[in-house]
């Protein structure tokens, strides 16, 4: 007996397991109610604006300044996290040192610690009377309440993305690769740059993209340390709240939201492609 080929059953195989209609139906309804319909509200709301109005809102100097800061700081933070995240993942996989289990568990702290807590704690730490901020005062460097503060918060938020994408790839690497390189006379540095780095590159780029995407949209951990000075240290998510929503200018808020959403979709696509490439390169399924 074989079921008919239909839209939802392209292979026409008989389904042995029950509950397909129920589980898929529930999934689609719940997804639509909680995610899809509310998200579409953003796009539908912007249709009340003409193109000229839309463009005037999203290209206003104060808004453009927030793009520069949000994207610039997120890029820089993701780049810093790639370097130090690789070193952390490398240390966790390849070296034994005291407290390793604790370090490994705490890597996920930015996932578990509420962003508001991270925000107030980072600003206390990097303020000019704080433990770390105080050390920089003699050099005339201010971190809290400047764009540097945004960078610090985004570094904190991005750490686990890079470590947790690179770490499993490093763990799965066969030592034979390096043994072959060494027996063929390669120095350790040559082995790293010519053998290991090419294998790790897709994972590093995926981690970079994940950290970057999260950094651009990040709100809670940033606003406390940023100082939020217009044109200087204001981030894009904040401008949606402050200048738009609190003034009941919902069309203005949604126009900026559309720009951020389009960027998010672009990053989602990029990350999916990177992960497919990474899976192909390393032979991992995920």
């Amino acid at each position, binding site marked *: 007996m074989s079921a008919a080929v239909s839209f939802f*059953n392209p292979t026409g195989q008989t389904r042995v397991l029950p509950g397909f209609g129920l589980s898929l139906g529930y999934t689609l309804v719940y997804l639509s109610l909680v995610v899809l319909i509310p998200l579409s509200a953003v796009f539908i709301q912007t249709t009340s604006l003409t193109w000229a109005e839309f463009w005037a809102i999203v290209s206003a100097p104060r808004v453009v300044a927030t793009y520069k800061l949000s994207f610039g700081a997120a890029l820089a933070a993701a780049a810093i996290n790639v370097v130090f995240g690789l*070193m952390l993942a490398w240390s966790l996989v390849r070296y034994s040192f005291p407290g390793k289990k604790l370090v490994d568990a705490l890597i996920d702290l930015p996932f578990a*610690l509420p962003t508001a807590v991270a925000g107030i704690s980072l600003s206390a730490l990097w303020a000019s009377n704080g433990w770390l901020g105080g050390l920089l005062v003699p050099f005339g460097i201010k971190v809290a309440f400047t764009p540097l503060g945004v960078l610090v918060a985004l570094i904190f938020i991005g750490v686990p993305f890079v470590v947790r994408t690179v770490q499993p790839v490093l763990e799965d690497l066969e030592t034979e690769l390096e043994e072959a390189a060494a027996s063929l006379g390669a120095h350790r540095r040559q082995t790293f740059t010519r053998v290991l780095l090419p294998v790790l590159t897709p994972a590093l780029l995926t981690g970079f993209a994940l950290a970057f995407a999260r950094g651009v949209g990040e709100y809670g951990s940033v606003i406390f340390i940023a100082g939020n000075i217009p044109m200087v240290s204001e981030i894009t998510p904040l401008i*949606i709240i402050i200048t738009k929503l609190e003034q009941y200018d919902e069309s203005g808020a*949604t126009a900026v939201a559309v720009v951020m959403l389009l960027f998010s*979709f672009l990053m989602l696509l990029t990350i*999916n492609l990177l992960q497919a490439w990474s899976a192909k390169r390393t032979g991992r399924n995920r």
Partner: protein
Amino acid sequence: MAITATLHGGSPIAHGAHRYENNAATREQPWVRRLILTLALAFFVLFLLMPLVVVFHQALAKGWGAALAAVTDPDALAAVRLTLLAAGIAVPLNLVFGVAAAWSIARFEFRGKQILSTLIDLPFSVSPVIAGLIYVLMFGAQGWFGHWFIEHDIKIVFAVPGIVLATMFVTFPFVARELIPLMQAQGRDDEEAATVLGASGLQTFWRVTLPNIKWGLLYGTILCNARAMGEFGAVSVVSGHIRGQTNTMPLHVEILYNEYNFAAAFAVASLLAMLALVTLALKSWVEWQANRPVAQQEII
């Protein structure tokens, strides 16, 4: 999109580093090793450990008494209750959704599966501020359904239902994201065997599927709960910021902090930091439990 930790993605360090350290082809010169370890651990201490320590240090800046007074303040207790309420609604709903989504995606073939899978991840890539904004657009005074709710005297936005909805949105993918790859990797042979042997759908689910996915389910639920209780941006947009009424714990921290009541803000924050530490401990324990039998099988 592997935007959160996954149970089978980042495995605990099971084998130890000795196999690399005792192999001339895979170890670095001592000074290189020392340099990498020093830089990595310095980065860890500066950017992860110190922010955590500061929370507890600042919470006790005015002594235990002040910290205790801050967390037992009626407004703080109301915030705790609202946080528990929001998580208590959002987490079970997303758990049921996660199981349903994983059952349909991992157990059946159908057109558009890849798109559905990507759409489930969508909330992870949306800024929390936008997650709040969308509910204001739908249920706010000028929103799509705003008039209807005002006529019927129901408040969604700037009230508790909005907070619950925003929490549901930001924690939407956690359980599904954990279960889908896990159930895909396990395959459907076990369930098909049970069904062919005459088990009903519910029997198959309770006796075959659930025991197989329990660690993944627990793992996803723990992460979902941590985010639900700690969400700030999305909730901040939809909350009325009314003390004792529409303040969750993270919002209460913000209000205290903006009033320059730092010790109290950090005292409430330290509760959330402890929640984070419990989350990380549970997560490590689940990873250990889930990986233990597999490790034993590999030895045999």
